[in-house]
């Protein structure tokens, strides 16, 4: 429906546009590439020829600048157009022109030319400019950037050679081809761009000595009458605008194609006639390549185009990027690992510096590499003094060679050694030390360092001793307890059996102790016991043992007795010291003791239980006999008591 309307409107328009055939005027616009008067003179005969050939129409010539042509077309003031090919491509894109009706053929001497190109010239004496590449950085005179043969063809050729005008060389717009040639000759510019044929016409007109200029990048072209520096493009098109009726277009085509080179119209314009239109696609491609209007916007580049053009490069880039990403990933992983290790090292370092245990790191040769604060605290050697020293110099060197050799062997075999050694501090004090030595190997398995952990176990040792003391000694008096006494007794018996030594067991029970306890309290009683224990201990010989069995009961073991008399001498001393007064809390207290003695003078009497029993019996006997005395048990019979000792007074509460 709409199409029908549009068609109708067009029809109406055509009817209105051609009311009277005789009065029809067709306006032929021609691009003024040379001065308007020259153009008028050249092309008026052609307009007249067309007027003649077209029945009932008059063709009027208008010589216009490029911009004016565009305005005139927009205002529908032109019916026919002759302009340069790149301008045609531009105008066509803006106003939906039909295709070219014909391509003009220029006459050059005997030759007809349907193509045009560009010429790059420089003054003949310019030895420094010989190739396209030499144009880099030069000043180049051009008629104007909208000239196909005067700028665009050369720009394209230079672009193909890798030179971009404006970026790599400066262009100076001079307005016309003639001025470009003049500027080149005058040395105002280094080189110039003109259209093909210009040099030859100027030479023919006598304005130019052909030897004064040289052509850069000359092209080898057969049957082309002009020098050229670029590839060739189709000559000017003759265009009928869309509003020209079809019949008129046919008449125009006939008129154009039948124009004879000898016709005055052809002669005036320098034409050999018109040919069927050439392919102007190549001009369009040139405009596209140079980003000239209407292709001055960057083409929409599809990924496909990019892929096609840069396939190898992109693949290379992708692989390279892949490698880089992989390396970055590996680097990140390595960094994370390093950070973790760094953290761990810091932790280890803080353990090293804050550890309660002394740490000493030594080389396999024994040189100290590092020590921590605890080491200094334990050994007394400051870090500065320790580092570089030989580890042996810091040790007490009390360990004998065999020990050290065993230690080394063990280290070699197991990689570690653990034990207790005695060392000497800087101040000379000996102290027990717990020592752990570990071998540290490098990645290749070579021994690198020894790490020694050392701790001062003086306190531990003391504590151990205390525990041992408590287990075998009476807490109040510090004397061995029943258990320890039993061990000693068995030891002594074993020794006596082997060596034939004599020994005696003495049971001792204090007389009147209960009364002291009841009268003065347990504290005083305890002090009394402790005091008496000390005295009695001192009354014994070296090697003898006094033990507390509990309460006020004691037992003594007398060893290595020469004879009975030697034993009895000790017994008497015991009896005496037990009865000596003792001052406690400014009170003078006195108790006595009853002692039972059992001698083992013969091997058969060496029986612990039996000895104890006999001593016990003898002690009771002494008690019964009146206390503060001793009785000696005889093997056969329980002795008739009292024995040879002086009988002390019974004075429990002296």
């Amino acid at each position, binding site marked *: 429906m709409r199409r029908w309307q549009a068609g109708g409107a067009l029809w109406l328009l055509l009817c209105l546009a051609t009311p009277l055939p005789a009065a029809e005027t067709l306006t032929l616009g021609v691009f003024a590439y040379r001065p308007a008067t020259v153009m008028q003179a050249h092309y008026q005969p052609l307009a007249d020829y067309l007027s003649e050939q077209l029945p009932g129409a008059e063709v009027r010539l208008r010589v216009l600048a490029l911009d004016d042509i565009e305005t005139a077309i927009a205002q529908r003031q032109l019916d026919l157009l002759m302009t340069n090919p790149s301008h045609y491509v531009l105008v066509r894109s803006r106003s939906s022109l039909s295709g070219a009706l014909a391509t003009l053929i220029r006459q050059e001497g005997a030759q007809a030319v349907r193509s045009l190109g560009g010429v790059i010239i420089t003054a003949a004496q310019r030895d420094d400019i010989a190739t396209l590449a030499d144009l880099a950085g030069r000043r180049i005179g051009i008629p104007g950037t909208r000239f196909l043969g005067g700028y665009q063809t050369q720009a394209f050729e230079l672009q193909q050679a890798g030179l971009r005008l404006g970026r790599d060389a400066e262009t100076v717009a001079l307005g016309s081809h003639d001025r470009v040639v003049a500027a080149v000759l005058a040395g105002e510019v280094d080189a110039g761009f003109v259209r093909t044929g210009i040099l030859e016409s100027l030479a023919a007109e006598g304005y130019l000595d052909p030897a004064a200029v040289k052509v850069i990048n000359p092209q080898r072209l*057969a049957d082309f009458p002009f020098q050229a520096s670029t*590839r060739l493009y189709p000559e000017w098109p003759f265009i009928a605008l869309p509003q020209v009726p079809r019949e008129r277009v046919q008449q125009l085509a006939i008129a154009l194609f039948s124009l004879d080179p000898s016709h005055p119209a052809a002669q005036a314009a320098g034409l050999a006639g018109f040919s069927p239109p050439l392919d102007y696609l190549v001009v369009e491609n040139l405009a596209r390549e140079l980003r000239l209007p209407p292709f001055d916007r960057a083409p929409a580049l599809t990924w496909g185009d990019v892929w096609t053009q840069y396939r190898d490069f992109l*693949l290379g880039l992708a692989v390279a990027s892949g490698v880089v990403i992989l390396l970055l990933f590996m680097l990140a992983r390595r960094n994370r690992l390093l950070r973790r290790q760094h953290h761990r090292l810091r932790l280890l370092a803080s353990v090293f510096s804050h550890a309660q245990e002394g740490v000493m790191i030594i080389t396999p040769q024994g040189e100290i590499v590092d020590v921590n604060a605890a080491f200094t605290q334990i050994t007394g050697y400051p870090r500065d003094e320790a580092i570089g020293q030989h580890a042996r110099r810091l040790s007490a060197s009390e360990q004998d060679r065999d020990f050290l050799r065993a230690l080394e062997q063990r280290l070699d075999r197991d990689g570690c050694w653990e034990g207790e050694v005695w060392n000497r501090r800087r101040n000379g004090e000996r102290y027990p030390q717990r020592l752990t030595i570990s071998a540290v190997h490098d990645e290749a398995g070579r021994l690198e360092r020894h790490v020694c952990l050392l701790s001062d176990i003086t306190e531990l040792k003391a504590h151990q001793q205390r525990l041992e003391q408590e287990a075998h000694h009476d807490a109040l008096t510090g004397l061995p307890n029943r258990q320890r006494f039993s061990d000693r007794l068995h030891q002594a018996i074993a020794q006596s059996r082997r060596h034939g030594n004599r020994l005696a067991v003495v049971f001792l029970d204090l007389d009147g102790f209960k009364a002291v306890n009841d009268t003065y309290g347990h504290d005083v009683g305890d002090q009394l016991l402790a005091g008496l224990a000390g005295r009695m201990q001192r009354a014994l010989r070296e090697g003898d043992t006094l033990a507390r069995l509990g309460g006020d009961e004691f037992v003594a073991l007398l060893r290595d007795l020469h004879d009975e008399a030697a034993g009895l001498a000790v017994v008497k001393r015991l009896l005496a010291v037990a009865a000596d007064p003792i001052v406690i809390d400014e009170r003078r207290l006195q108790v006595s003791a009853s002692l039972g003695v059992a001698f083992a003078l013969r091997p058969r009497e060496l029986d612990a239980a039996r000895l104890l029993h006999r001593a016990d019996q003898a002690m009771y006997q002494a008690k019964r006999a009146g206390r503060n005395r001793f009785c000696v048990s005889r093997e056969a019979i329980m002795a008739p008591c009292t024995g040879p000792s002086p009988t002390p007074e019974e004075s429990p509460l002296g």
Partner: protein
Amino acid sequence: MDRRALLTRLLAAPLLPLALSGCQPDRRLSLGIHPWPGYEPLYLAREFGWLPASVRLQEGRNASDSLEGLRRGALDGAALTLDEVLSARADGVPLTVCLVFNDSVGADALLVRPGIGSLAELAGRRLAVERTAVGRLVLAKVFAASGLAPSDVTLVDLPPDRQLTAWRSGGIDAAISYEPTATRLEREGAVRLFDSRHFPGLILDVLALRRDRLLWYDAAIDKLIAAHFRGLAHLRHSREDALHRIAAWRDLSFAEAKATYAGMALPDRAGNRRYFGPQGKLRETARTLQALLGTPGDRLSTDRLDDLASDHYLGDA
């Protein structure tokens, strides 16, 4: 691009810096070529710098030079006629056709001295012919059309580039030739009596490459063929420019250069695809040529035409 090509490129990509550094040995594709209008797009491509650096055109004077180079192994491929390809295959050069340059429809011709009005009048004359398959092919067609036997004429083995001198010195009365020599002979007064228009579709000029070296030059071949089509587009769209250049190279006038193309069709990428495939004209023509040129049982006749052609490098439709 198929997977093989992709893999080749992927493998080559890490070696790219190596290739750029130029320390590779010369691994350029060597292509035998000689003047023939159908091959001009490649010459145009070379003129405008469109040929990839990985391709070297080894310019010979005629097809025999290219065939000789192929047999010696000096060339990786050549621009040849299809019958020459079949002969080379029979000689053990494993050629595969990757592109059709042109279909001769009049470009191969028999040219005779004025006065020889018919083929039958060739009897007793000295006839120059290149001892190539295409020479034999045209000769066979001439004998078939004239009814003459080989013994009726004196055959002079002369490649086209030497025929002009022989013609001028009067050493030959007729010549089986091809462009551009045919046009030059005509300029010397020779008359075109018989040409490939009489047997269309039989003389195909093709790009034949050694199958055993295709893999080496995968990327180079892609670019070579792209360059050919770019040259062909220039010949089509910038016809005037192209013909002015070709005329200059071949020592012809513009009009003569233009005339040489009257006798041939140059298929573009789309047109090329029609020649390939099981139903394509390449295979059909090859069978015809086998029947015409081979003797039963010889290697040319027994060629099963496996791998005769590959449209791999023509790209997708």
